[in-house]
């Protein structure tokens, strides 16, 4: 059964003043709320038996999704829209791995990036006005989870 609720961004914007900017991959639902506040977005939550998706539509049109295990851990994130969200915030403690891998020479030029590390997989693509991407922590994935569900 699907469960959907919508929270207006404006309600939680006030929280952002005091909220430290921490997020997402590897974090818990608290980090989703912090992201929501920081992105000044609207939240839609969808739950299945195996995972929960928090979808934040930012004021600037980028859609960010954060995937949580039943144990409340963010195991994947995705984004699509006119601008890329703040990846330092989205990737949390995984940002260092991303930074190291993405700084190395990579064959895809400016339009495509694919990173595969033991602890982090990240795929990013697009061009000005239209970006998309996703990242996940392989060791946090729920059992029998299909990667095609990260979209």
């Amino acid at each position, binding site marked *: 059964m699907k469960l959907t609720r919508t929270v207006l961004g404006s309600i939680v914007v006030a929280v952002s003043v005091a909220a430290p900017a921490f997020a997402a991959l590897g974090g818990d639902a608290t980090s989703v709320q912090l992201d929501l506040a920081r992105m000044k977005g609207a939240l839609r939550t969808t739950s299945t038996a195996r995972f929960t998706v928090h979808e934040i539509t930012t004021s600037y049109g980028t859609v960010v999704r954060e995937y949580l295990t039943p144990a409340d851990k963010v195991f994947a994130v995705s984004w699509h829209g006119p601008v890329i969200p703040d990846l330092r915030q989205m990737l949390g403690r995984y940002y260092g791995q991303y930074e190291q891998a993405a700084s190395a020479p990579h064959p895809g030029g400016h339009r495509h990036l694919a*990173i595969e590390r033991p602890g982090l997989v990240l795929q990013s693509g697009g061009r000005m006005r*239209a970006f998309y991407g996703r990242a996940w922590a392989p060791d946090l994935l729920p059992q029998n989870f299909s990667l095609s569900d990260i979209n």
Partner: protein
Amino acid sequence: MRKSVAPALALIQLGFLAACGGGGYGRGTTTPPPPTQMIATPGPPNVETLTVDAGPTGGVNTAFVSVQICVPGTMTCQTIDHIEVDTGSTGLRILADVPFTLTLPQATNGSGGPPMTECLQFADGSSYGSLRVADITLPGSGEHAANVVVQLIGDSTYPVPTGTITGQSACPGIAENSVQAFGANGILGVGPFAQDCGGGCAAPNPPLAGVYYNCASPSTCVDANASLTEQVANPVSMFTTDNNGVIVELPAVGAAGITTVSGSLVFGIGTRTNNALGMATVLPEDPNSGFITATYKGIAYAAGYIDSGSNGNFFTDSSLTQCTTATGFYCPASTMSESATLQGTTATMLAADFSVANAETLFSNASYTAFSNLAGTIPNPPPPPQAQPFDLGLPFFYGQNVFTAIEGNTVSGTMGPFFAY
């Protein structure tokens, strides 16, 4: 080779062939020979030499020109080589550590307003720097644009925003603020749009995060809106003539690849005898996104585009083996022939034929920089109804002239933005 699958257009082409006397196309002949590609000779007034080589950092499938940049209204100029030609972005951007030695006036947000900076986002990182005003000349053709807003990437006066002060969003991702990290001395964005961000950056409240900034001081830049005239501009739009688009003309490249390729970047479409649309088929783009639809193996990808700034053809095909060391590229055991059908906002459809070779085999010849059969994966795209990408990159340009018309211009009765080949 390409073929048109629009019935109306096919009739027009047949009529044209008949009018020309038909040559060898006798009754019963259904397939004309491949069109002979004509590459314009570089020189005045509108043709620039375009070169594919390793560039400053050893890349593949990257096309470069030289650009002369001058302090506005003066003869104080610097010519920079190896500026990447990108039909998938908009605006001239130069890397400060080329080194760029001119002092260009700072672009401000409105007359007397604060100096502006920009975070230019790419899929693999972002480039940050101040906005400056320059006169631009393409040295081979002499095409000229005055008082153009450009970006000086890696301008050491301005620390990269980290989002730690009120009103400031971070410039996200890995910094590409040096020639080494960027892979070119600069980039000449000659894509379908007249400005880089467009209306989306002009008036939203709050401003778009991590794009334009107003800087009361270099370390206190905050998110800002930018009107169309304040944004980084497509230099071609600001030429006095030949300002409605470009043609990328690169010769064919054989199956194994080649060390270097020389061709032409032609300015203007249908403005002179050397830049007529001719037999090219026009695919009008969505005016907001610049996308066309690509149908490949029965799946319609709504975010299709043709882009000289992509160094491969990038698309989703689970039947193609992916490389193990060249992450993100395809490595089929034998070269595959593929075809997509492209469609713009009209009924006209156009076949896009390309082949996919083993990328690791191609890359094994380290001196080669141009490959017509290099292809890679797309990160798992969003599901419908969101746009799914299909990216025909520089490999698609070899052996056929590709037209990119800028928004707001009408060429041969079609309003830009459009692609044609």
